């Protein structure tokens, strides 16, 4: 028996066996992800099992991280590499600056949705994950005998790592829509501190502080850190992957490799296009083998292709569901050359926008592009020997390729003009690259001039002069959100009742509050059921939201055509408020005059 066990152990320890295993698992993953499972099966599989698969991955990652943390001597931190010691003053400075940035951001930005309607969809998925362990977004939901049940849902296109984490917060704190914001507020200092650690590896406290300040004062970062979107998690996981990848390349070893691979797997599930970083991850793994002069393969590395199967299946469902692409009528494909020129123009327009209307940072754009340019020129002219570069530089190189590919992909996407408030968040990864290009630039230039101090001073001035007014006004986070928040506040101020909201926007906002809601289109279709509700009320009140727009230079607002209800719907206005040129109106459905009902309207 002992012989058999030692034989298996010896066999498993052999590189060829491990390589064969990873090859087989890879082929299996390819088959399952792209060939073997049809869309019709993929969708229910993800809906039912996605949560559990994600839970398994996250637990594995946390366990691996703990192992790495517990015994750092076996992984990462090359003992030969010179490391600057942490002083109490440095630790204090890092915490104080992080805390100051947090207080400043939370003081000026409101904890509310920033990008329509992404964040509500994520929250809705988290709702179902929390209540039903199901990866699904609500379409309709009703209070049935005291329990608010999702009666109709679908698998959304958005990756579900962020909703999974939100559902965990719900698990711990109880369900509240604010939990998604709390999660992002908690992720914000974590992200800034990981940025500090990475900056520090290159240029001591100066590098750390530059990274922390440049990222923390970027209005786009602050905007997303106070929303309920998945961007900050994406940035954090990207930084984590680089940090752990650097540790792995410093001293290629199983533990750091496992954490690195799991970080990349989770990163791939943070945002749609983050799957690209799997390529960067593979590059880092291979570079590690090359540097170590041997193959390093942990159990996680062997099974990792299987962990990516849900990503492939999810993408398959998305590719086969054009309705989820949200394209305009005149657009036929999601990606295309025709989008590139305008998107490219948008990139530079956004990065160098001098006003307060966009969440950019001109200082970071300028310094970052300068830094990237200098790095590029240095790389071309000096052609550095990859063996002589430190592990972190190599990891950054691999992920810079990923971020570059990400940017190129985005340029081909139909809805990614950075100047559009909905799309500006796509610029976060390039901005991240710029931050560390500036750190590198400062490291080089500090030899001659006190550049780090100048950059830190300029960052403070830029933050006070432009960052603060941007956050204070947050012009870029208002479109549609102000109106939704007003509706929510107004309805909240009404006496508690069983209420149905017929909305002109998205029903998700109300469903998250456990208030039944349907879209106006559906309300028109369900006219007979609504008429029934008015006579045999399950709902004490049916509210209708509509918007009015000006018909001329003089105003004279009218309800827009697509939001008009048939004339048999009798409405009573209860509140109106102007938002820009629009007037939002909330009415009460008083009656549906049955005489006007068309025949057979009860059929669905």
């Amino acid at each position, binding site marked *: 028996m002992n012989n058999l066990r030692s034989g298996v152990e010896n066999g498993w320890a052999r590189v060829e066996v491990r390589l064969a295993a990873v090859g087989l698992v890879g082929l299996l993953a390819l088959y399952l992800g792209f060939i073997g499972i049809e869309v019709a099966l993929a969708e229910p599989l993800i809906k039912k099992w996605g949560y559990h698969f994600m839970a398994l991955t996250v637990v594995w990652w946390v366990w691996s991280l703990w192992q790495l943390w517990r015994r750092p001597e076996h992984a990462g931190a090359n003992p030969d590499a010179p490391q600057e010691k942490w002083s109490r003053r440095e630790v204090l400075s890092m915490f104080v600056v992080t805390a100051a940035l947090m207080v400043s951001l939370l003081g000026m930005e409101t904890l509310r949705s920033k990008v329509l309607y992404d964040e509500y969809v994520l929250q809705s998925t988290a709702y179902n994950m929390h209540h039903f362990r199901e990866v699904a977004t609500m379409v309709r939901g009703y209070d049935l005998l005291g329990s608010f049940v999702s009666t109709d849902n679908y698998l959304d296109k958005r990756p579900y790592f962020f909703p999974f984490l939100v559902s965990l917060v719900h698990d711990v704190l109880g369900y509240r829509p604010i939990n998604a914001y709390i999660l992002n507020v908690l992720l914000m200092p974590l992200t800034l501190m990981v940025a500090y650690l990475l900056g520090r590896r290159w240029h001591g406290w100066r590098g750390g502080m530059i990274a922390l300040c440049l990222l923390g004062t970027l209005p786009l970062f602050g905007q997303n850190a106070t929303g309920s979107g998945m961007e900050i998690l994406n940035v954090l996981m990207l930084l984590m992957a680089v940090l752990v990848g650097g540790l792995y390349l410093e001293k290629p070893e199983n533990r750091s490799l496992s954490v690195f691979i799991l970080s990349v797997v989770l990163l791939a599930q943070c945002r749609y296009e983050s799957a690209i970083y799997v390529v960067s991850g593979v590059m880092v793994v291979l570079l590690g083998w090359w540097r170590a002069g041997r193959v390093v393969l942990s159990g996680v590395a062997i099974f990792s292709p299987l962990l990516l199967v849900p990503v492939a299946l999810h993408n398959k469902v998305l590719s086969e569901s054009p309705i989820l692409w949200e394209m305009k009528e005149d657009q036929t494909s999601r990606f295309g050359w025709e989008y590139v020129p305008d998107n490219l123009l948008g990139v530079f327009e956004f990065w160098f926008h001098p006003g307060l209307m966009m969440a950019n940072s001109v200082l970071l754009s300028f310094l970052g592009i300068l830094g990237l340019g200098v790095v590029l020129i240095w790389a071309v002219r000096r052609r550095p020997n990859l063996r002589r570069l430190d592990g972190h530089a190599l990891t950054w190189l691999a992920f810079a390729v990923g971020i570059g590919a990400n940017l190129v992909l985005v340029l081909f996407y139909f809805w990614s003009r950075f100047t559009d408030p909905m799309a500006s968040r796509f610029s976060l990864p390039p901005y991240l690259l710029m931050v560390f290009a500036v750190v590198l630039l400062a490291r080089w230039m500090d030899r001659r001039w006190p550049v780090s101090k100048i950059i830190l001073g300029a960052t403070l001035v830029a933050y006070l002069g432009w960052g603060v007014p941007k956050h*204070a*006004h947050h012009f870029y986070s208002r479109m549609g959100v102000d109106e939704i928040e007003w509706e929510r506040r107004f309805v909240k101020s009404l006496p508690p009742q069983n209420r149905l909201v017929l909305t002109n926007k998205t029903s998700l906002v109300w469903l998250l509050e456990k208030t039944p809601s349907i879209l106006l289109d559906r309300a028109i279709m369900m006219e007979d059921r609504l008429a029934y509700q008015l006579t045999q009320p399950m709902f004490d009140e049916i509210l209708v939201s509509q918007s009015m*727009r*000006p018909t001329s*230079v003089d*105003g004279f607002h009218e309800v827009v055509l697509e939001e008009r209800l048939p004339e048999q719907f009798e409405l009573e206005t209860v509140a109106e408020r102007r*938002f820009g040129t629009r007037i939002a109106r909330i009415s009460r459905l008083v009656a549906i005059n049955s005489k006007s009902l068309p025949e057979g309207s009860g059929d669905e």
Partner: protein
Amino acid sequence: MTDLANSLRDRRFITLILSGVGAILVGFILISPARALNVITYGGYWMMLVLVAIAAWTWWKEVGSEVAQWPRSWRSERGPIALIILCWVLLIVHDPFGFKILMDEAMLAGTAMSMHFEKIAIVPMRGHDIQGAFELLGGQLDKRPLLQPFLVSVLHDFTGYRPENGFVLNAGLTLALLILAYRGAVRLVGRGAGCCAVGLLASLPLLAQNATGGGFEVLNLVMIMGVFIAGVRYAEKRDAKSVDALVVTTVLLAVTRYESVLFVFPVAGLILWGWLRAGHPVLGWVSALSPLMLIPYALHNQVFKVRESSWEMASLGDFDKPFSVDYLPDNVAHALAFFFDTTGEQSNSLVIAALGVIAVPFVVLLLVKLIGRLGKVRPVEVAWATISVGFLAHTLLMMLYFWGHFDDPVIRRLSLPLNLFMVLAIVVVAAEFPGKRRKWWALGALIGVGFFSYSLPSMARHDYSLDYYVSQETAWRREFIAAHPEKDYLVVDPNSIEWIIHQVSSTPIKRAVDDPDIMRFNWRNKMFGEIYVFQRYQIDASSGELSLPEEFDVGSAYTLEPVWERRFTPFNLSRISRVVNIAEGESRIQAEERSTFSTMTPEEIQAAREAYMENFIKLLP
């Protein structure tokens, strides 16, 4: 001659001379008054940022090496620390936080608001929510110096915009003042004096009133004490770091209140004394460039040339000169009325007044005696003499001011520096009495009696705040705003600034009277959830009838429905009414025919939206 030649070889001395010439050219000659106001409007924020950054850096250089020792010294100061905290709490708990002096504090809050949102130094006169965010659409540079609004704006920057941040700053500064007063008195005399100084300040209801307001008075006192402490350090050390700290603190004091620039002159004397003692100019680079730092003051001061009304001489009737010896007798009478009021209506401290009026002449005598022995004088005495000259000059200026009535509710606060001088003078003179500790206990007991018998009841009643009904009316407006959190309404009020600083759209009554058609356009298009009008009626003493002064009359075009009203004095009724109708009339209709979406193309709908957008921004009140 040799000394002069040596001095001229000192690059910093040459820089001082050149920067002095440059400052005079830029501050007074090269830039026209109108352009100077523009420079301050758009550059004032940045100038303050640079000054404060230089001050922080200079002070860090000066005391950075001592900071690590501070916690150790605090252990031996537990008693005074407890006293300071107790006195601070007593100063801020009795008077409710709010705007105490109108329009001063609202103007400062307005400047801080524009500094935070736009990084420019104007008092916003128009502001509206156009596309969700409240935007400042116009305003003008205020005459008040910019340091306090700048500090409030920094507080906004790091904690978010709240009009109440001015109160938070003042509460914090009051603690700083007590600490500095303690340190100053300890340096002058000793620990007993420090504790007595803190106790005396705590007995001053005027300080309590300002500690819970949004003005710049407490900052002024803090900066004066800062100059004194810096002066003591310089007098003792006479090195580049200490002179830099002294100079930069004095510059900050100069941009705190208009008349505080007076302290620049005695401080210059102190620096000169140090040079004479050292036998050569003692200068750091900051002090060498200090004349340039006074350019913001010089440029901002041009506001009094451009706008003669800034002196507000019309407020009191027929005055034609802001300063004159003729005002002296009357002002002295008002000062005595303030200091020795026993009714509690004057926010004075009887104990400070009674002891101070005795101590100040003695201090003047000590100063005169000091002149005779300048060569042997102790450094701390020179610093004390410097600050005393500043205090005396300030008092003299106030007594020559046309509105220097210390017993006027709006002017009382101008007596704060004199009160602080009296506090320090009392402990300095007390030190001359025989005995080591007993005299301080005796003085402490006296302060305690004054505090509990007069000051504390006075603070508890705070009649001096309540009698000033304008402040009460402002608090009432704030209650209205708190009760209407949506802030989607417009208020027509002569004091529109008070609404605007709370991010509520507001326009003066004059505008509503002059342009009813604009109001009609806004009314018809539901630009605002509601339109309210603030009015102050006068009540006839005999008949009880209400009459509306012209400045509060919106005219017959508006039909009003009262929603809130309150009497703040027996003869005034303040009322907020809702506009329920605006009579038909010209309403700025441009299109000849009415359109409707059913007959419009998407392009026409978009064009209508854009045209309307442009039009409505133009027609906002």
